[in-house]
């Protein structure tokens, strides 16, 4: 078992969640309640990572953040850093890749709250921020937790985009999925099997947990 790779994967997953949680809540809520011009286009763009091969997304990020041109060059000149072949790059790529997995469940959870409930809260004298905190988040929390669990598991097992953007640098960008690939390449089947089984087990637990949460939420609010 490559503990260093596992630790890096877990760290990557947590840091990704840290960013995705507020982004998902704000964007999911906005998309759930607002109608605006270009909403369909925005939703299409946000859903792209669902259907786009991770390597394709990784390729475009690689091109975009290349330090020789455009955005990548601007990042180097402005902040003295780049977003490829390092941990920050992995985090950014994971956020982009996980956007639909975070936003869609949260959007559905917010949309499921009846408009009258939110309006009743406003008529009770609650400011919008208080309505979000006391009414919307508690009612949408199962959707939010489900989204976070799925994003965590997804980041933990992601391969293509990580390899494209991060490469395979031990302790820097070598996640557990890449470590498994590495072990298979070097005929270390035993280590590959242990790590693969661990990921399989974790994925099953994740899915079971989200199903349990969803059922619990239905029981509570029906």
């Amino acid at each position, binding site marked *: 078992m490559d503990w260093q790779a596992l630790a890096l994967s877990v760290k990557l997953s947590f840091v990704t969640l840290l960013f995705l949680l507020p982004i998902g809540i704000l964007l999911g809520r906005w998309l759930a309640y607002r109608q605006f011009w270009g909403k369909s286009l925005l939703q299409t763009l946000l859903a792209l990572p669902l259907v786009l091969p991770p390597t394709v997304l990784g390729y475009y990020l690689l091109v975009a953040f290349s330090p020789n041109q455009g955005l990548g060059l601007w990042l180097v000149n402005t902040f003295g850093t780049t977003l490829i072949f390092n941990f920050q790059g992995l985090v950014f790529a994971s956020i982009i890749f996980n956007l639909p997995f975070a936003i869609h469940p949260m959007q559905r959870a917010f949309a499921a709250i009846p408009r009258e409930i939110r309006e009743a809260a406003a008529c009770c004298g*609650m400011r919008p921020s208080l309505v979000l905190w006391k009414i919307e988040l508690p009612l949408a929390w199962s959707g939010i937790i489900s989204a976070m669990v799925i994003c965590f598991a997804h980041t933990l097992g992601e391969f293509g985009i990580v390899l494209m953007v991060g490469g395979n640098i031990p302790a820097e960008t070598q996640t557990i999925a890449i470590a498994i690939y590495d072990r298979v390449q070097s005929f270390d089947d035993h280590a590959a099997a242990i790590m693969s089984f661990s990921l399989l087990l974790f994925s099953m637990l994740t899915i079971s947990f989200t199903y349990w949460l969803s059922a619990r939420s239905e029981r509570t609010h029906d």
Partner: protein
Amino acid sequence: MTDSGIHITLQQAAPIPLSVQLDCKSGELLALVGPSGSGKTTVLRAIAGLYQAQNATILCQNEIWQNSVQNIFLAPHQRHVGLVFQNYALFPHMTVLENIQQAISQLPKQQRQTQALELLKKVHLEGLERRYPKNLSGGQQQRVAVARSLARQPKVLLLDEPFSAVDQVTRRKLYRELLVLRESLSMPMILVTHDLDESTLLADRIALLHKGEILQTGTPEFVAAHPKSATIARLMDQQNLFTALVIAHDQAKQKTHLRWRGILIEATYQEQFAINERVCWMIQSANILLHRRGRPSNGNKENPLQGQITEYMESSGLAHLRVQVDKKLDTTISINVPLHVAKRNTLGLHEKIGISLLSEGIHLMPYQVLRNES
């Protein structure tokens, strides 16, 4: 302009046409009545600040809630408004007590709890404070919603069809409770309903809304008996609505004479309609006298008509009759009589009866084409 009530003016052409001017005094219960889609709930939402009409002035207890000219618009949480939603909109993740406490969250915890318990007592829900909304009946949920709306000591109480989601037995019970409760309330109250009986029972005044426009306001009895137009009469579920020609005015006897399909009708003096002017006229069932068989009375002399019962239905202690007054004219009049009267006079289908239209109950309105004139 009202000092201690609410004054509402809403004007817009689209997306929802609105032409509304309403006043409701403190302690008064005004019912906003109209068919589905007439804009009743939109008006209520505009008062609460949940909908922003384009040209609006809403002044409540001398506080400007909205003034489009001065670009003032207070958000719902800035208006002291109590709103009971049609489906109650209780917070499902909170107990009954917590639901009410949300409206007084600015108070210290102890005071909050005391006030919430007092309100629960007021709506007869003691002992249910730890329950969740899903474990309450429709009537109990409605009471929680009322308690929550009152908790904030609102400057106006808005009730959006609050009785539509409960069964008839519970509804009657809740009517009685609201009638008792309103005696202790001093704020203006606006009730949205499409049920005319409900508005007649509960409201001091009604405002009839049709396609976003207030057509008439007044006491329920006055609007029902004196609609300004045939459209209003129809909306007030007036069954006996016809057209006729004004043929004479008799100022001395205070009578106006009409010709209705060849029959001469005598109505009370209504000089605003000129001779030879076509008009619509109506009469409420309460102003139609049934001739007692074998025992004629003086009332029988007033616009007497003979006819045959073509429809006969019994419900809730009343007999609902449709009487064809002239076979050739194919004209029917609807009458409701107490069941015991119907039984005593052996009324039934195809029976021949005599009726009188009391002239004081005949109300004239400007002419308009009536669909399916009965």
